[in-house]
């Protein structure tokens, strides 16, 4: 092999050079490998002068291969491939070794870090020798978009894209779009009515000619890749013919069966077996809850059918499976509320009048179970209310992270409780966090309204009275860290400001769409600062609380940002993909058919006549599943050949491996 390799070791300022002896790695590479024609270290390889260094060396010294040891390829592989290309070298004759993410940032011993960097560089050098020049593949981008989740984030994204003239499939699991925001009464810090600002958007999303609204539906399967996803959606049977239904809700009115509504009313009110979750629901069509409907459970009733003026009730309706083609996907699947029962010492579920934040939202909501009156279980108006912050957040027993919205939400509750009941309101907080626009002003306003702020983490909420004044009250036991004393504060009502958690099925959703979750369980963005709505999977974007806790303005911004990214991509019309593809070496294929059912892109067929399996290169996405599975080694993957991978492994192990007898 007479390749001429250029090796470049990046300091990344002190990011790498602070822990790795970069000069030594560069010197060693030149000394050890005869193929290495040039080996340099440089302050910032990704800077223009750094890239020009590579370009000039390729031109002047006729380099045939380039290795850069720097950050993760996710960050700068395109940068250095670009440098190679500008100098006339095929960009795939380049290999990157990550000595920042995989070495300097995760090491504490300079000697070992330097040794490990050498191992990674040797792996790259040995691998790059076997690289072959490749040409990227251009694929068209389907202009339609799938948005999963019809909360405010999803609605915003859908409207932005639809207004740009592209078609959107908006899929929502519940019977209506609106999400958590539809359950709120007021929004902080302006205290404008949540429904008043949300319902116009919901209505627009429901009627927009460019939006196909698929409520009461779920995505079951996603195939394909950026620009060309095939998505299977299950549209659950509402048992209502949407073409005939006018949304008069006579069926709901007459339905004799009442069930506790655990979803929209969070268990605080009842709904019927045929229902819309709330009056402003979009779409307007009700749903028959077959698990509770008398007809479906006991075989008799059909009252709704009798009263329906347009014969829209359709008991025989079946789930519908839709298959749609889209080019891009936005996941706006939102959050779940922390389950307050997990903290038994706060008494939720055991003590009357200990309620969650969402339950309080329903209590204050004009269309809620009490018509907007803040009442105790027995119907009395509370004279004192305690609001506990950080329930399930900033607590190593539950979630270490800050849920970001609870401080402002608790301040809002204090205001509403005060306003509606005149009660004495206590806020129990660890720290007050009000970082966004007008938030601190709101905090001051609540302070001025006479709310009591007690700094300390609540130890317990109990109804066990020690003094006559505590009799019949809920006692909040707290160590007041400002006063330096234990306090017992009797109140009538306790509101637990519950934290936000990833959706229970976030992992499965991630798997379905080929993206991953963080250790906390939130969907992971491509870059936390510079690419917050893209993901590691091309064509799949995330927005809103699916990515992490955030308030409504942040959700709306992310929805719009994801929409802008998608529209930008659609307008490019096509995208260049890495030419990493699998192919079958026919002479080696024995037709064992192990691979035939494995391809996630259905690119593999079996040629009965030749008795060999065949891969359609137009469908293959180079995922490597079949390459790994082929027992005969008859399927080869470009850029990931056996030879390339084995050479890299041998290079990695060369310094560490001492063969014994």
């Amino acid at each position, binding site marked *: 092999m007479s390749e001429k390799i250029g090796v470049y070791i990046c300091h990344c300022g002190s990011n790498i050079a602070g822990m790795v002896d970069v000069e030594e790695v560069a010197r060693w590479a030149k000394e050890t490998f005869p193929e290495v024609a040039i080996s340099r270290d440089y302050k910032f390889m990704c800077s223009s002068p750094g890239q020009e260094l590579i370009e000039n060396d390729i031109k002047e010294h006729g380099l045939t291969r380039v290795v850069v040891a720097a950050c993760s390829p996710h960050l700068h592989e395109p940068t250095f491939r670009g440098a190679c290309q500008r100098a006339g070298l095929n960009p795939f004759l380049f290999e990157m070794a990550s000595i920042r993410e995989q070495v300097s940032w995760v090491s504490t011993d300079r000697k070992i870090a330097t040794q490990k960097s050498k191992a990674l560089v040797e792996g790259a050098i040995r691998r790059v020798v076997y690289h072959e020049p490749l040409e990227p593949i251009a694929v068209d981008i389907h202009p339609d978009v799938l948005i999963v989740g019809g909360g405010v984030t999803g609605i915003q994204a859908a409207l932005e894209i639809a207004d740009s003239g592209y078609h959107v499939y908006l899929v929502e699991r519940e019977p209506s779009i609106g999400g958590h925001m539809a359950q709120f009464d007021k929004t902080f810090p302006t205290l404008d009515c949540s429904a008043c600002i949300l319902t116009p958007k919901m209505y627009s999303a429901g009627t927009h000619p460019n939006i196909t609204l698929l409520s009461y539906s779920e995505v079951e399967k996603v195939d394909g890749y950026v620009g060309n996803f095939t998505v299977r959606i299950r549209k659950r049977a509402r048992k209502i013919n949407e073409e005939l239904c006018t949304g008069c809700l006579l069926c709901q009115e007459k339905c004799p069966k009442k069930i506790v509504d655990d979803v929209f009313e969070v268990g605080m009110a009842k709904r019927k077996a045929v229902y819309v979750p709330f009056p402003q629901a979009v779409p307007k069509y009700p749903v028959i809850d077959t698990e509770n409907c008398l007809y479906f459970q006991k075989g008799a009733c059909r009252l709704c059918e009798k009263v329906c003026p347009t014969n829209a009730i359709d008991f025989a309706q079946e789930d519908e499976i839709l298959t749609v083609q889209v080019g891009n996907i936005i996941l706006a699947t939102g959050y779940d509320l922390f389950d307050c029962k997990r903290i038994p010492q706060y008494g939720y579920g055991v003590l009357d009048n200990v309620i969650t934040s969402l339950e309080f939202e329903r209590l204050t909501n004009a269309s809620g179970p009490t018509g907007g009156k803040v009442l105790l279980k027995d119907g009395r108006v509370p004279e004192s209310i305690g609001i506990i912050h950080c329930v399930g957040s900033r607590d190593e027993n539950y979630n270490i992270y800050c849920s970001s919205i609870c401080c402002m939400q608790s301040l809002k509750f204090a205001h509403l409780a005060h306003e509606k009941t005149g009660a004495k309101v206590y806020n129990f907080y660890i720290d007050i966090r009000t970082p966004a626009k007008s938030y601190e002003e709101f905090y001051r306003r609540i302070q001025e309204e006479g709310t009591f702020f007690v700094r300390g983490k609540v130890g317990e909420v109990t109804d066990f009275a020690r003094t006559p004044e505590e009799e019949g009250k809920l006692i909040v036991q707290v160590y007041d860290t400002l006063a330096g004393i234990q306090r017992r504060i009797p109140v009538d009502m306790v509101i637990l400001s519950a934290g936000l958690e990833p959706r229970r099925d976030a992992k499965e959703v991630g798997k379905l769409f080929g993206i991953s979750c963080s250790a906390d369980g939130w969907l992971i963005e491509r870059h936390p600062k510079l690419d917050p709505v893209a993901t590691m999977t091309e064509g799949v974007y995330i927005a809103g609380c699916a990515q992490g806790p955030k308030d409504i303005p942040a959700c709306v911004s992310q929805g719009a940002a994801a929409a802008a990214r998608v529209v930008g991509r659609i307008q490019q019309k096509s995208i260049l993909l890495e030419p990493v593809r699998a192919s079958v070496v026919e*002479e*080696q*294929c*024995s*037709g*064992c*058919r*192990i*691979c*035939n*059912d*494995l391809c996630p892109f259905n690119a593999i067929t*079996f040629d009965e006549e030749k*008795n060999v399996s065949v891969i359609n290169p137009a469908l293959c996405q180079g995922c490597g*599943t079949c390459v*790994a*599975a*082929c*027992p*005969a*080694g*008859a399927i080869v993957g470009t850029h990931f050949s*056996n030879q390339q991978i*084995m050479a890299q492994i041998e290079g990695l192990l060369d310094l560490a491996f001492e063969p*014994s*007898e």
Partner: protein
Amino acid sequence: MSANGKPKFAMYWAAACGGCEIATLNIHEKVLDFDANFEPVFWPVAMDGKVKDVEALEDNAILLTLFNGGIRNDENEEMAHLLRRKSQILVAFGSCACEGGIPGLANLSSLDSLFETAYDTLSTDNPENLRPSPVYEAPEGELHIPRLYKVLKTLDQVVPVDYYMPGCPPESHQIAAVIDLVIQVLQGKAQLPPKGSVIGAGVSTCCDECDRKRNVKKISKFVRIQDVKEIDPELCLLEQGIPCNGPATRSGCGALCPAAGAQCIGCYGPAEGVVDFGARLMTAFASVIDSKDPQEISRILDGIVDPAGQFYRFNLAGSLLRAGKPAWKW
């Protein structure tokens, strides 16, 4: 070249069972062609010969050496070096020389436990509790026996090998064909394949030569062949849940075992370009297990009762693993 003008031939067995030798002698009338074209100078199983005679030969004096058996002790290694030095073409002959073979499975155990099994089990009659000792003080002087290595090695792990001929043993017709090829090369009618090639076998896998009907694979159970009441004579064995190694095993044998209703056990080794037979086969089996439920998958995999024997029966010593952990420890 011998005095009679015929090129010299040698065949040697290291850690082997003798099957390779039998298969070689089993080439029937081809043996006449062989005799007409070669002068066997060293072939312990077939003729008398002394190591001293081989040592006395000039380097590269032997044209062709078929070396069978793995390298289990220092004598095996010494013979491998000697024959390498004396031979122009050294062929790793049979599974043991190529990949370690059955004796290589001992690489899963430490020497202590091997000795214990051989000399100290209930079924062993060894009243004096004798163990082999490398040195013995006899009245006539010190006697040595070969020193056992802690792991068995393949031929190419101790000396450079020119060609590989797989099989346990290699099929006689393949041996005959290889001898034919060498004769044709001698007569200038053919050329040797590039060094390092596998000879006497195909480039595809056993399935290529198997007549059984194959469908898209979906495996929902693995069963041992002795537990199957009735084997479908026409359907792929793997599809019947019988863990057949055919898909990963190099073609060349004519798929004899599956034709006879027994699963392929992989003696012809990995297909062209495959680095680790067992790893390949494991990923292949794992890829077609018909379940997404981890517990169900575990249950299906439990049907393979002897994974090491299933996936590494002939190739443990030559695999990426080379040995089990206990064997590496002294």
